[in-house]
């Protein structure tokens, strides 16, 4: 009995120590990435390639999801607002929920599963097929050549994707609210403009998406670089990327929201 308890305790302890250890390794890896970022800007075409694979290739899923999320918001919001007789506030509801929350968060979640998992799988496979080792043997630093451009490419793409998501969502809300249901177009836009503040809402949304972009990309890169060089190791690392970065997005969102909107 005591032996079992002791064993369980020992296992828990080992797990905790291991995860703290990994956390330290990840932090060191992240610092190294930042430190070796010079090439990502001096040879910007490396980063452009990664903006393509992280940003442009995520474009379709972001635009389509944004449109649908906005349309659903329009429908649901109309139903709710109608009971209080304030359908004109539909623009406010759609735009505020998108710009403040749904835009950055949902776009980041989609980004984690589309681009984040791709980054992990790609780097994991490069390691498994010894491409990273080959690069090292050619006296090329893989952090500077492979990791840092991917980091910056994704970090640059994320706020743009989130903005596109929000804009598309507002368009979706407009389609459903104004075109389909017939809410007055003038009050839809004017109430929205009166309620949405550029600094408080739009800029804070952009800050959120940058933070999420950094978190998702850092996790994806580290999981890929740290993955055991086997097919199973890479696939598990990919799953871990999606799970960990989704949790990180939601956790960070709570913290950031608490900072930004409850202050004043």
């Amino acid at each position, binding site marked *: 009995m005591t032996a079992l308890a002791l064993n369980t305790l020992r296992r828990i302890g080992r797990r905790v120590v291991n995860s703290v250890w990994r956390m330290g390794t990840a932090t060191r890896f992240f610092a190294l990435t930042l430190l070796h970022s010079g090439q990502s800007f001096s040879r910007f075409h490396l980063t452009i*390639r990664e903006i393509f694979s992280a940003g442009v290739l995520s474009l379709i899923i972001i635009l389509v999801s944004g449109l649908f999320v906005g349309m659903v918001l329009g429908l649901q919001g109309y139903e709710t607002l109608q009971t209080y007789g304030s359908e004109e506030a539909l623009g406010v509801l759609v735009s505020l929920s998108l710009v403040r929350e749904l835009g950055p968060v949902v776009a980041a979640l989609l980004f984690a599963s589309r681009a984040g998992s791709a980054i992990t799988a790609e780097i994991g496979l490069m390691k498994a097929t010894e491409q990273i080792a080959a690069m090292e043997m050619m006296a090329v630093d893989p952090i500077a050549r492979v990791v840092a451009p991917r980091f910056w490419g994704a970090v640059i793409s994320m706020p743009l994707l989130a*903005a*596109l998501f*929000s*804009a598309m969502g507002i368009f979706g809300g407009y389609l459903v609210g104004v075109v389909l249901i017939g809410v007055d177009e003038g009050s839809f836009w004017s109430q929205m403009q009166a309620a949405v503040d550029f600094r408080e*809402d739009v800029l804070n949304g952009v800050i959120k998406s940058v933070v999420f972009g950094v978190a998702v990309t850092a996790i994806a890169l580290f999981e890929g670089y740290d993955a055991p060089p086997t097919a199973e190791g890479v696939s598990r690392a990919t799953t871990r990327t999606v799970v960990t970065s989704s949790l990180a997005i939601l956790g960070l969102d709570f913290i950031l929201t608490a900072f930004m909107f409850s202050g004043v």
Partner: protein
Amino acid sequence: MQRATLDLWVGLFVVAGLGALLFLALKVGNMTGFESGQTYVVKAAFENIGGLKPRAPVKSAGVVVGRVSEIGFDNHSYEAVVSLKLDQQYKFPRDSNASIMTSGLLGEQYIALEAGGEEKMLADGDTLKLTQGAVVLENLIGQFLYNKAEGAGSTAGPAEQ
């Protein structure tokens, strides 16, 4: 993919993303108008500002003419000092009246400016003399109940005798 077409796609993506940001800033947000234009600041002291917040609108005849830029407290008069940032294109006489109003019964609070009759106009750094603080709902209800009770007391009085 060739480098040239790749660059083109990335360029399109960046332009579209920045366009979306611009759309959010101008069409959705309210970065238009006086935010970037010329402004002047006047002060007004209020006995009580209720729930007034920085960035609340300043309206005159229902038109937004500026925003609350800062809220402070005067240690000598024990009054709230509110700085109003007004758009340069709107001029008001020096004896204009500022009062704190509520949009709707429970809505957001804003400052209403009512133009006075003096010929000299407000300039940057001036202080508004005529102000009326927020109507605090609790005080209003308290006063109402007090009046009721008083009224009840005076009618009940004679019946007792």
